[in-house]
């Protein structure tokens, strides 16, 4: 890192609040994290409705205008100047922007990541006070001089009713539940849980005789405080409820409600008649309600994708999907649902990208563009398990063409592939380091060639062939003529039928990574390299399961089930004597997927490497429990494929 440059950033920030309150060392930390961004005149930094980016902005040079777009008209809310801070509220609330931020001149902006900012808020009360004071008074920009900001605002917009927190949406689109499940103090946990289950809700408010709220119990409390601790179900609800509760009147402004939830990190906010806790319960607002009100439901996202041909718009929707994913993961929404939604969104992006590419290149290739093809997703995306935007693996298969045409057709297919990959990169996916992508001529081939590849891998299963098999056998048609993909599947099963030895090789390969249990049933962590002392969740736990599921599915000649956990479900059906183990393995895989995705979001990485000591006790136990089925399955594989007598 360059100290000269860090210092230069530091010198600038030092001149403006809230950075003026920071000591030199802290400021240095902030400066290091800064990202310098450039926006040309008229470009948007963010738009109303965009997902909050991971940082807030300090204007270094230029002019940025904040405006609200309403009823077809743009209303200027603020004009930012050098040193102004903006885009903070959306960030704190982790919700979409409500204003447009547009560069009015070529502008240079410092983006400060939320992580370092939150740390400072915790450590430095002056800074947090500064922000709190600003936002409570409805500021959208943190100004060096408050009076100046008041003046600026009155110049740009008449005082109207919506002079609250401007960047929040109106209250009208907020739906919350008025039919609240309550439970009298003095009842047992068992009774409360029963009532919750009957009503199908995730929380219950504990009240006294006059329906004044005393505390709240959620699904999580029951899991963490009761079941995990082995507490008796006869325990009184008061013992485990969270209290005191934070209450508001439902007439309070949306922004007030929302800020209260953010500041106190609440998932639920209770409404009472007069807003105090000394008044009867009238409703409950959950963060889920808020999420819905912000338009981040899968239906809204998919609809948004289907209505745009703009690549950058697609990229934005994909970013919003990440928020949704985060919410799902934190709230333990069923994995097959989550995986389904995310795959659906990814698939639509690919389909749209292909259509865009086709409309661009088809006129130049009147003949080649008529050739039937199918775009395939491979590997984890092929298995519909890619939650994070990690490496892309994909390929194209097209129908066989007359010898003279071959070159022209491949040229066309590669052009399409190239466009699609570039679109996916813009949407935040990472390229495959091993280049297993459709724009690699090797993986953009006619059906006969693909059949040849598969035959080759099956007949001579060397190390490279086996590696390819683990990725290419999990192909899934995403766009185009599915019959081509079906023909590939048929071919594979035909080839395997005579050559069972291939499955033995594949099985042997799958057992290269033993269940990750050490001598004292501890974690096996990486011993060397960059990820020393971390646990490689992909290599040690997920790959063995995915590999085993694939082999068993192949050996049973099952077609059309790609998910690892769905494969295990199917296997449970087919192998009644191992039913329990298969179901357990499927569950284990779901847990692993969830843990990896959460880690990936936390560390902004592929989530592959976990630090065992950072995991909570409960999570560590959960993770360890997933290893048992791996061990068990590997034993079965060893016997079934006679691997002890089998050496290469």
């Amino acid at each position, binding site marked *: 890192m360059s100290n000269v440059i860090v210092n230069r950033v530091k010198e600038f920030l030092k001149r403006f609040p809230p950075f003026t309150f920071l000591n030199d060392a802290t400021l240095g930390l902030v400066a290091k994290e800064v990202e310098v961004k450039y926006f040309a005149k008229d470009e948007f930094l963010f738009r109303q409705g965009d997902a909050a980016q991971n940082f807030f902005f300090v204007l270094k*040079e230029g002019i940025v205008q904040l405006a609200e777009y309403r009823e077809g008209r743009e209303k200027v809310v603020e004009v930012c100047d050098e040193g102004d801070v903006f885009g903070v509220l959306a960030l704190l609330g982790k919700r979409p922007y409500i204003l447009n931020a547009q560069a009015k001149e070529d502008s240079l902006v410092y983006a400060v990541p939320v992580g370092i900012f939150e740390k400072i808020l915790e450590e430095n009360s002056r800074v947090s006070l500064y922000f709190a004071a600003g936002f409570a008074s409805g500021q959208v920009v943190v100004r060096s001089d408050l009076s100046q900001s008041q003046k600026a605002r009155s110049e740009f917009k008449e005082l109207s009713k919506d002079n609250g927190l401007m960047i929040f949406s109106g209250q009208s689109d907020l739906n919350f539940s008025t039919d609240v499940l309550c439970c009298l103090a003095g009842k047992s946990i068992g009774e409360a849980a029963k009532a919750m289950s009957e009503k199908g809700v995730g929380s219950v408010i504990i009240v006294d005789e006059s329906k004044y709220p005393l505390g709240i119990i959620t699904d999580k409390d029951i899991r963490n405080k009761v079941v995990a601790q082995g507490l008796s179900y006869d325990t009184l609800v008061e013992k485990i409820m969270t209290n005191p509760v934070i209450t508001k009147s439902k007439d309070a402004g949306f922004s007030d409600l929302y800020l209260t939830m953010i500041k106190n990190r609440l998932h639920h906010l209770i409404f009472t008649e007069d807003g105090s806790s000394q008044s009867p319960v009238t409703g409950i607002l959950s963060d889920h309600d808020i999420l819905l009100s912000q338009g981040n439901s899968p239906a809204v996202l998919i609809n948004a994708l289907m209505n745009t041909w703009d690549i950058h718009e697609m990229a934005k929707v994909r970013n919003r999907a990440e928020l949704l994913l985060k919410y799902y993961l934190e709230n333990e929404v069923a994995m097959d649902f989550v995986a389904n939604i995310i795959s659906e969104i990814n698939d639509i992006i690919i389909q749209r990208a292909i259509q865009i590419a086709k409309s661009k290149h088809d006129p130049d290739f009147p003949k080649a563009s008529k050739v039937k093809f199918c775009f395939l997703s491979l590997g984890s995306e092929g298995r519909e398990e890619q939650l994070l935007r990690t490496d892309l693996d994909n390929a194209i298969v097209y129908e066989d063409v007359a010898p003279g045409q071959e070159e022209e057709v491949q040229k066309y297919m590669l052009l399409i592939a190239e466009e699609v990959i570039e679109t996916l*990169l813009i949407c935040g996916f990472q390229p495959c380091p091993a280049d297993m992508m459709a*724009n690699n001529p090797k993986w953009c081939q006619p059906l006969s060639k693909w059949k040849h590849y598969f035959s080759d891998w099956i007949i001579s299963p060397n190390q490279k062939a086996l590696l390819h098999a683990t990725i290419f056998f999990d192909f899934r048609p995403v766009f185009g003529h599915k019959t081509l993909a079906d023909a590939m599947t048929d071919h594979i099963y035909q080839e395997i039928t005579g050559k069972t030895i291939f499955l033995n090789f594949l099985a042997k390969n799958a057992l290269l990574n033993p269940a990750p249990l050490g001598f004292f049933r501890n974690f096996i962590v990486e011993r060397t390299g960059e990820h020393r002392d971390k646990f490689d969740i992909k290599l040690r736990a997920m790959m063995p399961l995915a590999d085993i599921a694939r082999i068993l599915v192949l050996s049973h000649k099952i077609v059309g089930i790609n998910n690892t956990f769905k494969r295990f479900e199917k296997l449970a059906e087919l192998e009644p004597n191992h039913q329990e183990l298969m179901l357990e393995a499927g569950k284990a895989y779901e847990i692993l997927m969830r843990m990896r995705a959460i880690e990936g979001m936390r560390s902004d990485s592929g989530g592959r490497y976990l630090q065992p000591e950072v995991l909570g006790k409960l999570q560590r136990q959960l993770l360890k429990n997933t290893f048992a089925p791996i061990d068990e399955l590997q034993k079965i594989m060893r016997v079934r494929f006679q691997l002890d007598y089998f050496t290469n």
Partner: protein
Amino acid sequence: MGWLDFFTGKKISKSPFVKEYEALFEKKTPKLRPISQLKFVVLDTETTGLDTKKDYIVSFGAIKLKGYSIQIQETFETYLDAPIQNTNSVKVHEILYPIEISPLKDFASDLLRYVGSDIIVGHHIGFDLAMINKILKSFGLKELLNPMIDTKALAIRLENGPHYDPRMGKRGEYSLDSLCERYGIPLDDRHTAAGDAFLTAQLMMKLLKLAEQKGIKNFGELMG
């Protein structure tokens, strides 16, 4: 190095990090990759003088640029005090080091890892490259393989079209100082390598935007 090398004409053997670097260029950047997705490394050197034969690099600064954005954490700065005596030994603080353990080796390997296969950008880049290549030669790399962009040439091309003869213009019209002034980039303290690289990176962002407005939208057109 054995005595046979003299007859076989074998050059200095390639260091492992050089081989690693060369392998990055097996794959080409697709021509249609849009500017916003391209990775640039903007660099600058401070040297003891202007003679590429005699003078040497004192400090080096570089910045990564992608999608009109710079991560401060990914900047790179290094100070060298290592004139090359000959290709096999290096003098640091009046002490002769064999080239294999000299600070220059760390620099060379850090540099190659840092630039990877990104597009190298600099103001009057030819000079910096000559200085850098001189160091890299000692480790078996003839010259940097990256695509190169000179901000000076790019500014001239954008302002005057591709066929302009720079000798026609005023002297110093395309110096970093006058370009920064023209494009509204405040000159902080000039003349540290990292500081100048930072300025050049800001200039580059403005030039790229300008290029996009003029219809130069992807890698092929930018390098063409």
